[in-house]
C-alpha cells in the first residue's frame, strides 16, 4: 500500500496532551489503579442540546475529532473510521443497571441507543453532516490499528483523499472494577494503571502543507510468540524495503504483565542499539492506548525529540526518520505500525 500523510494528531488522555504547546512536559504519575482522562471544557466543542445525552467517551471522541480537523484545516473528511475496544461502556452499564434494578420495566431508550459501539463514529458523522464512508472497529487492542489500516487502504484505493481516523475508550464505573479484580488474580498482572482516552488523526492521500509524518505501513496479526516475533518484524520491514537497521526508535506497548516478554525479545535482539520507548505508564492500559503511542511517535518525528519520560534506555539518535510501534494485549491483537518523516 502507498504511504499516507498525517496532518494532525490530537490526544485527550490522562496527561495534559490536548494542549499542543507542550509535548509530554510535566507529566503526572499515578498511584492507584485508574488513570482518568483530563477533560477539556466540552462546551467549546459540542452544543449543550447535543451533549446532554453523551457519555465520557462520546464527548472525548467528538472533541478530539473536531480538534484534529481544525488543526488539519479540513472541514469535512471523505471518511470517518473509528476504533474502540470496550465500546460505550458507561451507557451499557447504565442500561444494564436499569434492566436489573427495574426488572425490565420502565426502561428508557437513551442509554441503549448510546451504548452501541458505533456511537462515536456516528455522532461525528452527524455533527459534521459527513455522508462518506463510516466504519467502527472493535478488535480489542488492535481496534485503532484496524481503523488506521482501513484508512490507509481507502486512500490507497483512491476511494478517499482525506480520512479522519481515531480511537476512543472510556473507563466506565462498574465493569472496570471486576476487570481489575480478575487481572490482580493473574500470576504476573498488568502493573500500569487502567486508563481511557480519545485520539484522532487527520490523514491525506497526498502530502500537504500541514503534513508532518507519514504512515508507511501497518500490520495486524493474531498470533506471535517469543520465537516468531523477530521473524514477524523482519518480514514486516522487508515488505517496506527496510531492515531493522533502518529503524531509529521503537515504541513498545509494555504494561508490566507476563506478555512483556514479547517486547523484551525485540529489546534484546533486533532493536538493542536504538532508542526504546514505552508510554502506557503515562496513559494507562486500555484497548486503544496504542493510539497514544501513535500520537507519541508522530510527535517525535515532528519535534525530532524524545521526552525523557518515554525512554527505556539512554541511546540517542541525531535524526528520527523511521519509528516502529509494536503493541499486543495478552499475546493477542498484535500490531506493527511504521511511521516515517516526510
Amino acid at each position, binding site marked *: 500500500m502507498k504511504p499516507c500523510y498525517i496532518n494532525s494528531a490530537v490526544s485527550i488522555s490522562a496527561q495534559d496532551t490536548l494542549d499542543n504547546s507542550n509535548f509530554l512536559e510535566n507529566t503526572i504519575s499515578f498511584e492507584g489503579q485508574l488513570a482518568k482522562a483530563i477533560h477539556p471544557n466540552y462546551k467549546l466543542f459540542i452544543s449543550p442540546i447535543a451533549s446532554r445525552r453523551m457519555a465520557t467517551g462520546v464527548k472525548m471522541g467528538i472533541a478530539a475529532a473536531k480538534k484534529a480537523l481544525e488543526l488539519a484545516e479540513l472541514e469535512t473528511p471523505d471518511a470517518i473510521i473509528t476504533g474502540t475496544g470496550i465500546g460505550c461502556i458507561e451507557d451499557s452499564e447504565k442500561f*444494564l443497571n436499569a434492566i436489573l434494578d427495574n426488572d*425490565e420495566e420502565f426502561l428508557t431508550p437513551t442509554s*441503549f441507543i448510546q451504548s452501541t459501539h458505533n*456511537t462515536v463514529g456516528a455522532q461525528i458523522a452527524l455533527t459534521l453532516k459527513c455522508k462518506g464512508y463510516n*466504519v467502527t472497529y*472493535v478488535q480489542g487492542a488492535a481496534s485503532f490499528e*484496524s481503523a488506521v489500516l482501513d484508512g490507509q487502504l481507502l486512500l490507497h484505493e483512491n476511494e478517499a483523499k482525506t480520512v479522519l481516523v481515531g480511537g476512543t475508550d472510556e473507563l466506565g464505573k462498574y*465493569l472496570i472494577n471486576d476487570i481489575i479484580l480478575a487481572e490482580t488474580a493473574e500470576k504476573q498482572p498488568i502493573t500500569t494503571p487502567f486508563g481511557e482516552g480519545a485520539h484522532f488523526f487527520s490523514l491525506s492521500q497526498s502530502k500537504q502543507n500541514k503534513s508532518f509524518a507519514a504512515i508507511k505501513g501497518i500490520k495486524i496479526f*493474531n498470533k506471535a510468540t517469543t520465537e516468531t516475533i523477530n521473524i514477524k518484524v523482519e518480514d514486516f520491514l522487508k515488505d517496506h524495503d527496510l531492515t531493522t537497521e533502518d529503524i531509529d526508535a521503537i515504541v513498545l506497548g509494555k504494561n508490566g504483565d507476563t506478555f512483556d516478554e514479547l517486547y523484551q525479545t525485540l529489546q534484546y535482539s533486533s532493536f538493542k542499539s536504538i532508542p526504546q520507548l514505552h508510554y502506557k505508564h503515562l496513559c494507562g492500559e486500555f484497548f486503544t492506548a496504542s493510539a497514544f503511542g501513535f500520537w507519541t511517535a508522530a510527535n517525535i518525528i515532528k519535534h525530532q525529540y524524545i521526552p525523557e519520560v518515554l525512554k527505556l534506555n539512554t541511546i540517542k539518535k541525531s535524526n528520527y526518520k523511521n519509528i516502529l510501534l509494536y503493541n499486543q494485549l495478552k499475546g493477542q491483537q498484535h500490531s506493527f505500525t511504521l511511521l516515517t518523516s516526510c
Partner: protein
Amino acid sequence: MPKNRVAITGMGIISSIGTTVEANLHALLNSQKGIAPIVNINTRHKNEIKVGEVLQTNAELAKSLHLNENHNYSRTALLGCIAAQQAVKHANIDTIDAFRTGLISATSVGGMDLTEKHFQNYNAESLKLINSHHAADSTEKIAALLGITDFTSTISTACSSAANAIMLGARLIKSGQLDRVIVGGTDGLAKFTINGFKTLMILSDTDCTPFDANRKGLNLGEAAAYLVLESDAVVKQDNKTVLGYLAGYGNANDAFHQTASSENGEGAFLAMSKALKVAELNPEDINYINAHGTATPNNDLSEGKAIKRIYGDSVPDFSSTKAFTGHTLAAAGAIEAVYSILALQNDVMFPNLNFKTAIPELSMVPITEVTKKPLNYVLSNSFGFGGNCSTLIFSKN
C-alpha cells in the same frame, strides 16, 4: 471484466430456520419461518414479542464444538464458531495458512449475554467470564478454532456490521493484502438487546410484515453466517468451485439521526449508488434485491424511497427475508449474503412473507411467492443505527 475478482468459495450459517446452508435453503423454498415465542431467555416480555431464535441451548451448541463444561464462550461466540467452521469446511480448506488468510467478523452484542447474567455480581467462579464481554472475544475464539494467525479484526456498525466485514475482506483481497478471508457476523439474543429495542417501541408483537402498509415493527433474531472469500489466484491454483462473486460494495452514512433513517433514504441511496459504481453495473443489471426490510415503519419507507430514487417506477423484483429469520442485527448482512448466493445458485427469489398491502407512499409490491427466474446480479442492503448504510452486490459469474 473487473480485475482481481473476489470469489466466494464457502458458506456457513446457523439461524432460526436452520443450522446448515441446506436447511436454510429448504426453509426458504418452503416458506418455513423461524419466528416464534422466545424459549432460551427468561424475559418479562416473552409474551409480548416473537423472535427468530436458534433453538439449541448454549450447552448443546458447546457440545457440538466439543468444548469442556468450564468454557467461557458467549452465545455470540458459540454461534460464530459453528457457522465459520462450516464455511471453511464447505470451501474444502485443509491447510488454513497455505495462503495469507484473514478473519473479519462482525458483532454488535458481543458477550453481553454473559455480562448481563453476572454484572455487579461477579464471584471467583464467574470472574473468568469478564474477558468475554468485549466484541473481539468471539472473533478471537473463531480465529483460534480455525487456526488463523494472520489479519484478524472485528467490525461493529450496528445492523450493517457484517456487510462491512464482507466489504473489508473483499478490499483486502483486491488490493493484494490477503489471498483469502473468512468474513461474516454473529449475534446471539440477549436481554440487553430485547429491552433496548423494546424501549424504541419498534418490536412487533406478532410476525413482522416487511414493506406492508400496516407493519408494526421488527422481530429480533439471532444467527451467525460466514463466507470464504478467495482471490482469483487461489481459485486457479487450488482449482476451487466458485459459488459466486462479490461484484460490488458501497458504504455511506445517512448523517441524519442517531437511530432513525432520513425520509429520502439518503444513506441507503448513496450506498447502493456506490456499490453499482464499484461493480461497474447499471441499475437495470440488478435482477433481484434482498432488501434490509426490517418491517419498522421508518426503515421500510426510507429504504423504499431510496430504491425508488435509483429505479423510479421500474423497481426490480425485491423481498426482505427478515420475516423468516427476524432481524439478526450484526449478522444480518452475512445471513442475507448467504441467501443472495443461494438465490444466484438456484435462480430463485425468496418470498417476502406476511405481505398484504403496499405502503401507499411507495406502491412497491415485493415477491411474495418462491419465484424462479434466471439471476445474474443480486443486490443486498444492510442499514444500521448511527446512519451506517452498506450495500453488497453478488454476481453469478
